[in-house]
């Protein structure tokens, strides 16, 4: 077509005009049909995302609202003073309400003989809901109960704290703050902190805690390297049911933990202990511990699920290495013959009695279930950030009665720490998703991903409100669903559809495709313009 119009000479104006029209026609079709089709078929599909809401929510104040009812405060100034002392933290906000003790409470107070009994009676009298705390100020007539226990403040098994009117206010308030949330979760709530930025004990804490995820797989492994000498009868199932099940079912609303157990024969830890003649046992120096689990890690089994897994290993030492004791770097044996590996689990060394000289092999051995499970629970509570109150003078912390369960306030503290951690995670995920979408223009956002993001944002907002209002149960629920949705969006396989198709490759593909079509059109347009310019001066001459 272009060459046609090139051939056209002025002599034959009609044919040249025809050619020009044709060229213009091609150009018009190319612009009106071709360009939109090309544009439409090559644009990266992007569902609309709530960018501004994400921006808003990530700047919203994050603090945990905790309602604290002071019962039986001696004077108005007491609760006011308390409130003043509790105000210093950015990430916790106490809502202090004050009331006088009711008649039945006073009666129960009078009849209580010990702090345990007092706690039991008082928590039966007043129901304190999840996420809140109650502070009972004991009248002077009853303060002898606390004196008997040699304590100024008593932390109950549920969500009650008992103190006398002349209590030291800073001690009380710092105790309350520690009960409510641990210091790391505090930091997490404040901002986006990575491991590198944390210092000292906070970093240690962060390196210890398992990542906050909706569920964990816990594996109990009994390692018997020499089953031909030792025959172990251990009912792992009963041990788990007795010790771990109450704990796990208590955590049901916060996190799902599934437990498996296995026995591993003929596998030993790669340790080279030395005989310590002063202690009459084999000493396993602390310096060897960091590498002990490497050798067995491959044999601990593989998992189907991708969620974090924790291992607890009970190791029966070999005959020529037993009894085996872990020694600290200063050369003294560790009382509890076990060690914890942060974010991984723990290893317990369980020594067995030496058989008699002519005993028939394999000889039967019973394991100390109580010690094993107490150690597992100790490690597990450290790995999941269960709040912990450092023992101090004048403070008595009652541990949960009769079982391995957590106390009410410990459970709340764990839930709060997890909410903080979830909130930080959700913010990071959604913000970085928005940033990446802005940065990388080839990223496809399918409707499914869009749906996840919208869902996550909605739940996130709900969670923030619930957290501020102190509705801990709702906050936990909203946060975990929001976290799952945000993660699903971020890690959606479709997010990668066009990712490895950078701009320079785009030109490499489009240039050969469009050049053969567009060059003739552009050239013929030149002719059309030439014709048009020639026509206009003629008109002027006629005038």
């Amino acid at each position, binding site marked *: 077509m272009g060459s046609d119009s090139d051939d056209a000479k002025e002599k034959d104006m009609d044919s040249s005009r025809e050619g020009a029209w044709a060229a213009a026609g091609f150009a018009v079709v190319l612009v009106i049909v071709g360009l939109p089709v090309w544009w439409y078929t090559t644009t990266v599909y992007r569902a609309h995302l709530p960018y501004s809401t994400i921006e808003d929510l990530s700047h919203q104040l994050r603090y945990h609202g905790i309602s604290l009812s002071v019962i039986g405060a001696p004077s108005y100034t007491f609760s006011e003073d308390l409130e003043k002392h509790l105000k210093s933290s950015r990430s916790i906000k106490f809502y202090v309400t004050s009331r006088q003790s009711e008649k039945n409470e006073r009666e129960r107070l009078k009849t209580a003989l010990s702090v345990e009994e007092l706690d039991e009676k008082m928590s039966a009298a007043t129901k304190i809901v999840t996420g809140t705390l109650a502070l009972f100020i004991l009248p002077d007539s009853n303060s002898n109960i606390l004196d008997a226990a040699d304590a100024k403040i008593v932390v109950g098994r549920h969500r009650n704290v008992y103190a006398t009117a002349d209590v030291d206010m800073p001690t009380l308030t710092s105790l309350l703050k520690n009960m409510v949330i641990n210091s790391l979760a505090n930091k997490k709530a404040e901002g986006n902190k990575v491991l590198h930025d944390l210092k000292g004990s906070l970093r240690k804490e962060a390196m210890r805690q398992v990542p906050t995820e909706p569920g964990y797989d816990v594996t109990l492994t009994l390692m018997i390297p020499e*089953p031909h000498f030792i025959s172990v009868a251990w009912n792992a199932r009963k041990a788990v049911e007795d010790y771990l*099940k109450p704990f796990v079912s208590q955590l049901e609303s916060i996190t799902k933990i599934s437990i498996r157990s296995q026995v591993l024969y003929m596998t030993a830890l790669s340790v080279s202990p030395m005989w310590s003649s002063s202690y009459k046992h084999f000493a396993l120096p*602390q310096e060897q511990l960091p590498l002990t689990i*490497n050798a067995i890690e491959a044999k601990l089994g593989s998992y189907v699920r991708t969620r974090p897994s924790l291992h607890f290993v009970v190791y029966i030492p070999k005959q020529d290495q037993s009894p085996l004791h872990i020694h600290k770097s200063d050369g003294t044996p560790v009382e509890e013959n076990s060690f914890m590996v942060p974010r991984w689990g723990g290893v317990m060394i369980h020594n067995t009695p030496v058989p008699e000289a002519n005993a028939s092999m394999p000889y039967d051995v019973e394991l100390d279930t109580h010690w094993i499970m107490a150690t597992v629970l*100790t490690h597990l509570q450290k790995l999941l950030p269960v709040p912990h109150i450092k023992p101090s003078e004048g403070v008595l912390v009652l*541990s949960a009665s009769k079982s*391995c369960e957590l106390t009410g306030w410990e459970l709340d503290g764990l839930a709060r720490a997890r909410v903080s951690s979830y909130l930080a995670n959700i913010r990071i995920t959604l913000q*970085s998703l928005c940033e*990446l979408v802005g940065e990388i223009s080839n990223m496809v956002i399918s409707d499914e991903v869009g749906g996840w993001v919208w869902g996550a944002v909605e739940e996130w907002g709900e969670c923030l409100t619930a957290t501020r209002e102190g509705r801990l149960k709702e906050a936990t629920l909203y946060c975990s669903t929001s976290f799952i949705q945000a993660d699903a969006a971020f890690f959606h396989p479709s997010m990668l559809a066009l990712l*490895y198709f950078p701009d320079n490759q785009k030109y490499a593909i489009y240039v050969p495709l469009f050049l053969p079509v567009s060059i003739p059109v552009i050239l013929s347009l030149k002719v059309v313009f030439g014709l048009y310019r020639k026509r206009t001066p003629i008109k002027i001459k006629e005038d």
Partner: protein
Amino acid sequence: MKFFPLIFSACFFALSRAITDIGMQNFVKGKTHTNNWAVLVDTSRFWFNYRHVANVLSMYRSVKRLGIPDSQIILMVADDMACNPRNPRPATVFNNAHQHINVYGEDVEVDYRGYEVTVENFVRLLTGRLTPSTPRSKRLLTDDGSNILIYMTGHGGDGFLKFQDSEEITNVELADAFEQMWQKQRYNEILFIIDTCQAASMYEHFYSPNILAIASSLVGEDSLSHHVDPAIGVYIIDRFTYYALEFLEKVTPGSKDSLAQFLQVCPKRVCISTVGVRRDLYKRDPNNVLVTEFFGSVRNVELFDHVLDIPVCGIDVVGSEGNKTIDKTLTDSPGMKKRGSFVYAKQLPIHRIS
């Protein structure tokens, strides 16, 4: 890649091991990671690329020996040299013609093999955007405490690394993938090592923090192979990796060799190409970083003097309903209670061996 017909030059160089024990305490204190991962990638196939497989297996051998478990090593090997019919010594891959080190070893767990080694799979692995059906062993399940060693080898050019014979990954894609990992807090530090021609071009575009990148050659340079094994008939290992392996063989899980020493592993006179290092993204001084912080898996350990003071449980029977959380594996041994002790069959001669 150009091949230098230099047969195994005997220029072993003395490694400077100047670092003494003094720094040890500081190292442990400055440790910022909780676990180690390794992603080892060989991108090229065919027999004449034998050396790339040897390269990647050298690294695999080292990280495994130094303690990273197979579950935390992602090994991508595009071709199977050990079982290639042309291999005169089946089930072995050696790092030199004198068969000094069999880098194939006893057990090699290849996670992505053959045609699974694609750019898409590699980027998906890094970014975590895998299909839900992907097994755990093919996922990089790192967290904010993970140190990742990423080693790549293959045929590269200015700004790209060829995968198989059909596609290539560009330095921009790689940089974007790392940024996405950083944004989602999926690594603590990355040691990126690449042994290919013009390798330095691959780290040019990195912009995420805490990455130390090492390349076997600068832009415009070729990365060279070490020597030919006449029995195999092809070059069997690349220079940079050969000397890196030589260095790593001397490292033990407890040794104190620093990353700065690793950076000196292949000086120009033996490597012929210039080893490029990009330090600007990495905050710590390589002198204070142990090689085992990336190649090994030295765990943190905590000792407690006391366990929780809990009462003996299980005397009063806990209700047996709501057994959902306890997996079936616990319950599938009905004979547990009856069986007092395990009895070993006579035909197992275990007791006689020991």
